[in-house]
């Protein structure tokens, strides 16, 4: 049964997933375009690091995009068919959801491997200035964790009812509204930065997305 779920999810997602996997390979390769001279001065080394830092934003963005797409694809057919197929199966819901989750996660592995290969290729071909180091495996591991975390979050939201998604949106909208009202009333409470810090700073759930995503670094 898992093979069938995997096959159908692959069929539904391959047209969009394939270019995203290519993008995952290309991202580290493009990010080291400035690394051409091993005799660089510190100023040029700093420019190289700045360039890599700019490219670094693309890693979490790509991870989020792929994860969102795969999570939505995993449930879209069930939502369209009003879950009749799933209800007709002689298995509990958690078992079905686990197989959907596993199939999506397995397909995400292709993006992780593509990024790792791209990073290894980029690190191998770039001329890295003395004192700097390449971290192809570390960036791939981090990308994998970010990808699976984002996938788990989106999968949990899309697995629920429309009402659940509505609750999530209402909570986000409510926080923004409260912040705006407080500011209007002259009460300077940094509610959004406070919540943002709790989410992206350790041990917050999205901590893996923060920090420097540098293929080459000190």
């Amino acid at each position, binding site marked *: 049964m898992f093979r069938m779920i995997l096959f159908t999810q692959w069929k539904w997602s391959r047209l969009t997933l394939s270019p995203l996997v290519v993008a995952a390979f290309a991202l580290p390769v493009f990010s080291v375009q400035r690394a051409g001279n091993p005799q660089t*001065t510190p100023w040029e080394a700093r420019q190289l690091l700045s360039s890599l830092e700019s490219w670094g934003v693309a890693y979490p963005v790509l991870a989020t995009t792929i994860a969102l797409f795969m999570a939505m694809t995993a449930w879209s057919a069930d939502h369209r068919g009003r879950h009749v197929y799933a209800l007709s199966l002689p298995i509990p819901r958690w078992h079905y959801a686990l197989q959907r989750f596993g199939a999506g996660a397995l397909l995400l592995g292709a993006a992780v491997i593509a990024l790792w290969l791209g990073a290894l290729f980029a690190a191998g071909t770039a001329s890295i200035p003395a004192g700097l180091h390449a971290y192809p495996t570390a960036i791939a591991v981090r990308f994998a964790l970010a990808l699976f975390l984002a996938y788990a979050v989106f999968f949990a939201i899309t697995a629920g009812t429309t009402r659940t998604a509505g609750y999530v949106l209402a909570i986000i909208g409510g926080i923004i509204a409260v912040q705006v009202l407080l500011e209007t009333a002259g009460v300077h409470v940094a509610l959004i930065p406070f919540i943002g810090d709790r989410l992206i700073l350790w041990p917050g759930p999205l901590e893996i997305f923060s920090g420097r995503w540098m293929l080459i670094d000190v």
Partner: protein
Amino acid sequence: MFERHRWAVAALVASMMPAILTAQDTTALVRRLHQLELLRHSAAVAVARAESARRERLDTVRSGALVIVVRPGEAALVRQASGVAWTRLDSVYGDEAATLSSTPMLFFLLGPPRPQMAHLYPVIADSAATSADVAFQLVRAASAVIREKADTLVANWTGPLLLPGVPAATEHARVYVELVTAPSVAVRRCYAGTADACAAALGLGEGDPAVLGYDAAERRALVAHSTDLLGRLRPAVDACTLGSDSACLDVLHARGFEPPLSTDARQSLVRLTLVSGGRRALGRLAHGVSRSLSQRFALAARMPVDSLILAWRRAIIEARPKPVTIAPARAWTALGWIVLMGLVAFRSSRWR
């Protein structure tokens, strides 16, 4: 006749000797300099007032030692900004910021014609400037004034304006990158922990900076990468690239060169010195003309220069930018959140 005049001059000089000696007494000199400074300040303020009265009605805004002449319509904005600016200036420059009182500034916004006030240091802001923008312009102008008052050796060594409000972590992280990438034997030894090498890398070593900062191959590379060499140095440049180290040294001495570590690194050392040395630290650093730079740093920071430099190095090493690698605890935390989110999905009540 000549002989008689010579004796007369000798007698005159001899009679003036006590007065000359008194004038050279340090305490008296300091007192007279202080009086002179007060007179200069009073004169500058009087000139500002006189010109103000003569040409256009202007207000004077004071905050700490900042004296700012401004149009009445802009006084409220400048008053608000000057408080912020003074706090920042005082926090970095300490007592040296008090010398700003002798340099009144003229603030005006872009657009209307500049007020007709000579002898005042101009501070210009955009017509749409906010209080924060004006505070920044005041800080820049005041920093420039303080830089001009420091002696040339320190000002040139420090480089651009030493501005308050630069985040130490960011500055130190930039210096860390230099510390691991600068093509200099002194920098590599500094990274390994040698205080003398750090001094050489910062341009504070006692001796020839070209020899202290770079080895022969690095000197040759330094000359080879220079694109602005003078024509008369061409033979020496050619000899240097062919392997003559003495020719490389001649070229470097003739055209000058920067220490291996940049002004970012040097400014970070100055900031640490000012923090360590207290409110009078900048005065000791910027005006100790008879001493070498390293002696002045030691005097300003109230500690041996080696200790100061090692403390600086420690701060830089501690500010190493966080690389992409993740600690196991963080990886496990991420995995924990993944499992938790998965469990939420499996427990959802879609068809229960």
